[in-house]
């Protein structure tokens, strides 16, 4: 077959080929090459993603009164806990930064690797170690945890399920995230190619920089909180136990001090990836480079000061309520700045419509719905009404899945040809989008409506008045899963059978497109010298 296309370029020799003494999987799990570590993260995170998707799919069926003989209420509690823990700690947080950050960061700044390659591989081992502990916790002790992914006390202290081990798993995963953050900050400070000043960095790098700071500053708080839960369960130190003088609200404060900034760990790199994709397909420089760069930092900063908006009904002071409500509204400003700049980038651009752009635009659309419903919850009166309802579930799926998830898909479509040197079927990528988009909105927009009507989250059963809504949502989940299967089947086929993509299939202007696809082990034959900004097309501005 190959002889029929003699003009096609061959796949060049690259980091994908084993050159050292070790071969096969052993060569991969001992490699400190940032590209290999990135791909290790990709495969492991995708594995957990699919398990969590399957669990979510099952939960939707349970809401149709199916499988009630198999899935008891106790099991349902375990299912939404596992779904949340896997999605948050094993897919969304270790999604964009460790996968595309690892793979692309050194390429984008013209370096040969990250600052601490061995530490980088160690982070992956912490990740796998934590993941194994979480998985083991599901099958040992008192059974899978049933607390929800938030591990709220006092229930997490009282339940007989295997919370201690699951929490220890999350603690270990925190190490992985923290070390990656340290590694990226040092890399960005020290490894930029000559001539690449701070304002010549691609914006994905800026977003990784902001994300890394959150990882470094917030993760330790989660670590100590989880340690306290473990100690409380094992020896009963009493800090969260009112009977011994402790305070459960303190747990919520500590938990959200990490876990709200963690939301920005999830969304910032997604925004960064979108910022890379848009100029490439609009064939013009990004609009408002500095505004986008600094809004990343602003989101990281203000986003660290809004945690108590998860606790508006927990009993905090009137002053705290107003303050956190205000700050929550403020954090929408830098996010909106990004959205306006993205749209302005497209305006009067020479749009080259390709699959990554479609998914990037979908991200903007879905993220706007997610973001605006978030601002609604920042308003105190609305918050009390929708607290712990499907509205919240719908909102954060719009941000986490419609936002981060679709940005992940867009980034995958954008950088896949670079990572593997092969092109997927563009037609299949478009076809997958249709059920993805329809299913997504059927599922989660319905949840927003159900929530406003009063459907509480995490309930095993529902009143007859919510029947129609749940039916629509569940049918939506079928479309969604069908779309996911087409999307990933396309990429898996392309990994082995795709036609060679060439060095720069999209005509992108950032450094990763100047090297071969897939890149050689040392990334660049010669470290480039940077003389202009990252997004230069034609005779336009942007230098």
């Amino acid at each position, binding site marked *: 077959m190959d002889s029929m296309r003699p003009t096609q370029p061959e796949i060049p020799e690259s980091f994908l080929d084993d050159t050292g003494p070790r071969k096969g999987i052993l060569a991969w799990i001992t490699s400190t090459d940032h590209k290999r570590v990135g791909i290790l993260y990709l495969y492991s995170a995708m594995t957990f993603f699919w398990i969590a998707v399957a669990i979510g799919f099952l939960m939707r069926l349970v809401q149709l009164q199916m499988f009630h003989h198999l899935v008891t209420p106790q099991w349902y509690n375990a299912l939404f806990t596992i779904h949340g823990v896997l999605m948050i700690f094993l897919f969304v947080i270790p999604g964009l930064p460790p996968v595309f950050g690892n793979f692309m960061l050194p390429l984008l700044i013209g370096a040969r*690797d990250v600052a601490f390659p061995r530490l980088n591989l160690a982070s992956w081992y912490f990740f796998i170690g934590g993941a194994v502990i979480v998985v083991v916790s599901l099958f040992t002790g008192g059974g899978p945890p049933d607390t929800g992914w938030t591990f709220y006390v006092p229930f997490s202290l009282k339940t007989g399920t295997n919370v201690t081990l699951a929490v220890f798993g999350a603690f270990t995963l925190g190490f992985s995230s923290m070390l990656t*953050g340290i590694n990226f900050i040092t890399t960005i400070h020290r490894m930029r190619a000559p001539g690449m000043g701070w304002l010549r960095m691609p914006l994905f790098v800026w977003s990784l920089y902001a994300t890394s700071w959150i990882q470094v500053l917030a993760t330790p708080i989660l670590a100590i909180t989880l340690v306290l839960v473990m100690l409380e369960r094992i020896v009963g130190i009493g*800090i969260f136990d009112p*009977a*011994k*003088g402790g305070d459960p609200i303190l747990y919520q404060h500590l938990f959200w001090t990490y876990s709200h900034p963690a939301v920005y760990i999830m969304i910032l790199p997604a925004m960064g990836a979108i910022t890379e994709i848009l100029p490439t397909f609009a064939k013009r420089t990004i609009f408002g480079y500095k505004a986008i760069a600094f809004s990343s930092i602003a989101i990281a900063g203000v986003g660290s000061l809004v945690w108590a908006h998860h606790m508006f009904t927990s009993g905090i002071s009137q002053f705290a309520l107003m303050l956190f409500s205000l700050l929550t509204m403020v954090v929408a400003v830098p996010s909106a700045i990004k959205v306006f700049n993205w749209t302005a980038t497209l305006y009067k651009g020479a749009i080259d419509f390709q699959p990554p752009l479609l998914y990037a635009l979908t991200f903007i659309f879905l993220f706007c719905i997610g973001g605006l419903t978030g601002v609604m919850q920042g308003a105190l009166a609305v918050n009390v009404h929708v607290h712990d309802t499907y509205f919240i579930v719908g909102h954060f799926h719009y941000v986490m899945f419609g936002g981060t998830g679709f940005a992940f898909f867009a980034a995958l479509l954008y950088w896949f040809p670079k990572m593997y040197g092969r092109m997927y079927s563009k037609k299949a990528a478009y076809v997958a989008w249709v059920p993805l988009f329809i299913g997504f909105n059927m599922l989660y927009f319905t949840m927003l409506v159900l929530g406003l009507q009063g459907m509480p989250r995490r309930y095993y059963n529902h009143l007859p008045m919510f029947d129609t809504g749940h039916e629509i949502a569940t049918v939506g989940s079928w479309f969604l899963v069908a779309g996911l299967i087409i999307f990933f089947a396309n990429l898996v086929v392309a990994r082995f059978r795709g036609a060679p993509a060439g060095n720069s299939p999209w005509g992108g202007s950032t450094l990763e497109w100047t090297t071969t696809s897939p890149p050689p082990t*040392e990334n660049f034959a010669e470290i480039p010298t940077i003389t202009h900004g990252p997004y230069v097309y034609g005779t336009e501005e942007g230098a």
Partner: protein
Amino acid sequence: MSLAGTPHVEEHRDDFGARLGMWLFLLTEMLLFSGLFLGYSYMRARYPFEFHHAGSEMNAVLGVTNTLVLLTSSLTMVLAIVAIQRGEKRRAMLGVGGTILLGAVFLVNKAFEWTAEIHHGNYPGSAHLATLPPGEQVFFGLYYTMTGLHGLHVLVGISVLSVMLEMVRRGRINADRFVTLENGGLYWHLVDVVWIFLLPLFYLAA
């Protein structure tokens, strides 16, 4: 950046970068403890009298002795780094060895202290502690958590420095490349600084 043209992996050396990474790591350590300090301040504001009373039962002499031990160990650490920079390998080993030894003395003292407290029935879940007012129970909960976590850090520090002692002996850390030892020293000083805050909060609180 003088990285251009250098071969991959083998010779990428950036001492400044290594120190930067270490400082970031220390930042995470500080934040780890800060969660506990936050919990302490909140609980102390809530139970001022109970904290005062429970604090008066602590062995201040042992606490102060341990402070002196740790401060001295930081001094020997600094001396070791100065020595290695001057190429005085024997002195450097003596300094690192002294730090390890003093760290061990600290832990032994700590063990005596904990044993005594446990002997008095002041430990989480004990029948004696359950009779005390809630604020004092939280005090002891925090006491074991914070000094325990700190003790764990001393133990980690001792292990890390032991490896470095061997590296100095083999000449892997020498007058030309000593950033690893410097980073080990930074970690040790952090452990020391955390203790400086623990001392007044628990032993001198009364």
